[in-house]
């Protein structure tokens, strides 16, 4: 029982880190522009397929595909932002929802067309396949790597937001967009960059996700729901909030499936609705 | 809590209203009374907290401290709609209209809500002939009858300002708080607009915010001057124009909009 608890905690934390990478970008961009981007999960999916393709077709090593996944998702997000999304910042949330759901539909169908609907296999390098046991808990190397990556990303994000000029601009825009514009900050540019970075992180999360949760065209929708839960519980534009929410969600999801398999994801959705009703801006949100 | 303070003769009174946004104090120790049938002007430089005061009075914001009395009765705990039902009604500095309703529909909406038909879904709107005709009469009294079938967003800006007032009148207000009714209206038209306002029945007590001093002195019987979230002075137009503190505020701050 105790060992299984340790295992659940470890696996849940690793899973939570995955969810964090997938969702932190949406949290920040939502906080900045109030732009509801339901296509965020699609960028994660793209990252996954980039990794699979580079490894299978071009024989790239796994680690080398990770930056490529980041760049591909970031690049595509810039194209979409300039081409489509920026036209709907001022429109209501309905237009944003429709526009981005349209993008999700297209991405899912395209993935099914190009890669088929089957689960994509990924062959992890040997040094990731093993695990060691400590105090009766099984630590898989790959999950440790995942956790390490997520922690590094978190540190970089927090440091970047706190100590760089760009980070200060982003914080100002989140705080009060009008005032930021008044101060001469180019909010649109800052947003475009943030959007690209956030989508890139989702792409990175997507490629790291394959070995843990698999990859098929459903990914864009299935993980969108998790991403939205993290964002709504964690609060907008709060990196710490996203981190905490993703951790709790990851652990409770794994624990729920382990201890109450019959309930499926029911508990998670219940918690999400409950939190939203209690605090619509999320547990850690300011607004 | 503060009980029924005797506010004889006052239809609307504020007692010790405080409000801050974070560290920004926008209302502090606000006290005033509007006697029945009065025509008050509320003036003060931009950012003085005039709109915030209207928000507090009408329940769109909650005060941090203080009480609001309508007809001697505390309404501080009531929501905006409940205050409107008791006759405390406002207009907006920035048009808050229904862009894709016709002017007639918009005013008929307000009339129907006042008469309690707003939840009726099994009868048609034109069956409420009296309500529709009342809406039309209100529009006619504001010179909007000819354009009453046009969509609100198609109306000229000056007409939209009038429609702001029409919506408020449709609720049969006892106290009407007008937030810069002539905001954005050319100077030569604002006289006509205030002509309409001064022609309102004396059953309606009016407080209006306005920056144009000629207009203020012409139409207000008394003036409240607000600066930095406080009421600096209250007095008759003559007292106010002679008051050195007011002069200082207005000489130090020529531009206000």
């Amino acid at each position, binding site marked *: 029982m105790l060992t299984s608890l340790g295992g659940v905690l470890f696996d849940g934390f690793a899973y939570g880190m995955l969810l964090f990478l997938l969702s932190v970008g949406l949290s920040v961009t939502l906080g900045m522009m109030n732009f509801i981007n339901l296509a965020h999960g699609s960028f994660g999916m793209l990252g996954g397929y980039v990794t699979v393709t580079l490894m299978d077709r071009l024989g790239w090593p796994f680690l080398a595909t990770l930056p490529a996944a980041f760049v591909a998702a970031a690049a595509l997000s810039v194209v979409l932002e300039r081409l489509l999304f920026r036209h709907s910042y001022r429109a209501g949330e309905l237009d944003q929802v429709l526009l981005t759901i349209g993008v999700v539909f297209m991405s899912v169908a395209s993935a099914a067309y190009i890669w088929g609907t089957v689960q994509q296999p990924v062959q992890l390098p040997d040094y990731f396949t093993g695990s060691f046991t400590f105090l009766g808990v099984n630590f898989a190397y790959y999950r440790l790597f995942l956790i390490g990556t997520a922690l590094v990303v978190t540190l970089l994000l927090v440091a970047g937001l706190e100590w760089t000029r760009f980070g200060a601009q982003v914080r100002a825009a989140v705080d009060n967009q009008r005032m930021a514009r008044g101060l001469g900050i180019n909010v649109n540019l800052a947003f475009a960059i943030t959007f690209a970075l956030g989508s890139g992180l989702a792409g990175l999360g997507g490629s790291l996700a394959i070995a843990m949760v698999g990859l098929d065209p459903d990914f864009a929708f299935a993980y969108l729901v998790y991403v939205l839960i993290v964002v709504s519980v964690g609060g907008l534009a709060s990196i710490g909030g996203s981190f905490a929410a993703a951790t709790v969600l990851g652990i409770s999801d794994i624990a729920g499936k382990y201890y109450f398999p019959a309930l*499926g994801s029911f508990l998670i959705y*219940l918690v999400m609705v409950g939190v939203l009703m209690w605090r619509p801006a999320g547990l850690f949100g300011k607004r | 809590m503060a009980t029924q303070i005797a506010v004889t003769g006052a239809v609307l009174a504020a007692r010790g209203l405080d409000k801050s946004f974070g560290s920004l104090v926008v209302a502090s120790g606000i006290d005033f009374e509007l006697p029945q049938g009065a025509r008050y002007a509320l003036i003060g430089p931009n950012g003085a907290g005039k709109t915030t005061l209207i928000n507090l009075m009408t329940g769109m914001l909650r005060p941090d401290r203080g009480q609001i009395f309508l007809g001697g009765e505390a309404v501080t705990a009531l929501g905006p*709609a409940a205050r409107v039902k008791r006759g405390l009604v406002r207009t907006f500095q920035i048009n808050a209209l229904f862009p894709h309703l016709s002017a007639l529909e918009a005013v008929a909406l307000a009339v129907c809500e006042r008469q309690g038909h*707003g939840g009726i879904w099994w009868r048609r709107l034109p069956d409420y002939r009296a309500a529709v005709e009342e809406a039309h009469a209100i529009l006619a009294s504001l010179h909007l009858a000819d354009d009453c079938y046009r969509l609100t967003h198609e109306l000229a800006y000056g007409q939209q300002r009038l429609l702001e007032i029409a919506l408020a009148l449709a609720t049969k207000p006892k106290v009407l708080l007008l937030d810069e009714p002539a905001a954005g209206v050319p100077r030569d038209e604002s006289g006509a607009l205030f002509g309409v306002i001064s022609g309102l029945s004396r059953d309606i007590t009016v407080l209006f915010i306005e920056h144009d001093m000629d207009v203020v002195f012409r139409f207000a019987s008394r003036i409240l001057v607000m600066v930095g979230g406080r009421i600096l002075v209250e007095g008759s137009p003559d007292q106010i124009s002679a008051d050195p503190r007011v002069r200082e505020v207005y000489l130090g701050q020529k531009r206000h909009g």
Partner: protein
Amino acid sequence: MASAAAPHAYLQQQARWHWVEIVFWLSTLLPFVLFPQYLQLASQIAITALFALSLDLILGYAGVVSLGHAAFFGLGAYTAGILSKFYWGEPLSLLVAGALVAGLVGYATSWIIAYFRHLALIMITLGLGLLLYEAANSASWLTGGADGLQGVRIRPLLDYFNFDLYGRTAYTYSLIVLFLAFLVTRRIIHSPFGLSLRGIRENPVRMPAIGAPSRAHIRKIYTIAAVMAGIAGALIAETTETVSLETLSFQRSADVLVILILGGAGRLYGGIVGAIIYMVARDQFSGVNPQFWYFWIGLLLVAVVMFLPNGILGGLARFTESWRRRSR
């Protein structure tokens, strides 16, 4: 011209049936003669149209965005399906039961819905929908879970008209129910309540400032819409004699949104027109490449938002308006 008419007469004029509407409803009878082999599809279209009409009431008229409207559709479907399996299969009473259950849940959740707007509202409707989906999935002893509900048995309509293979009864039945619901909707739209709903959509901030109880209005219309969606769900259970989890899915909520937006929200006929186009197109294309269907839907959605913000009917209205002006 217009200003010459008395105001209530003018409004009466606005609410009157247009000849195009009468032609439209008469033409819904055409499938009986022209496409007798497609009556099953026609009945599915009528049911989808009813579902879209119910969404129009909250989204198109009151401006309440929901990403979980399938919850009520699925509730109606499962209520009718489960009752028919375990108790009785009389279709009209099942319809009432589906409406009742969906309406009750709609009323209960409307207390939540009315308090939120924007992002929180979208997430809450999405979350409630997912919650119900998972609940139905978990309660497989009752719902059949992912395999769908088996053993739905429906008695003949009025104990006389069998639900035949060609869908004659199904289409007649669905069309009559759709038409009745349409009449109710039309009445709501032209009522003082309908005007208040449009007021909420146009400016939710102003409504309390004219003394309108917006939240009570939203609760009411949300419940009415849930009832209508429940009826649509019960109809689908009765005419297909199956209920799958898909009736509760996010996909179903998104589909009906697409249908309504495609046709034109807030235009009474938008849901119906959207349903006809969407269902016919799906029937035509799905044979070719089923998994790619959603690519075109996605593209369509993006195109509608970017270029046809008021849907097909909105575009048509603008076209006829400018054409009329030119010919004047």
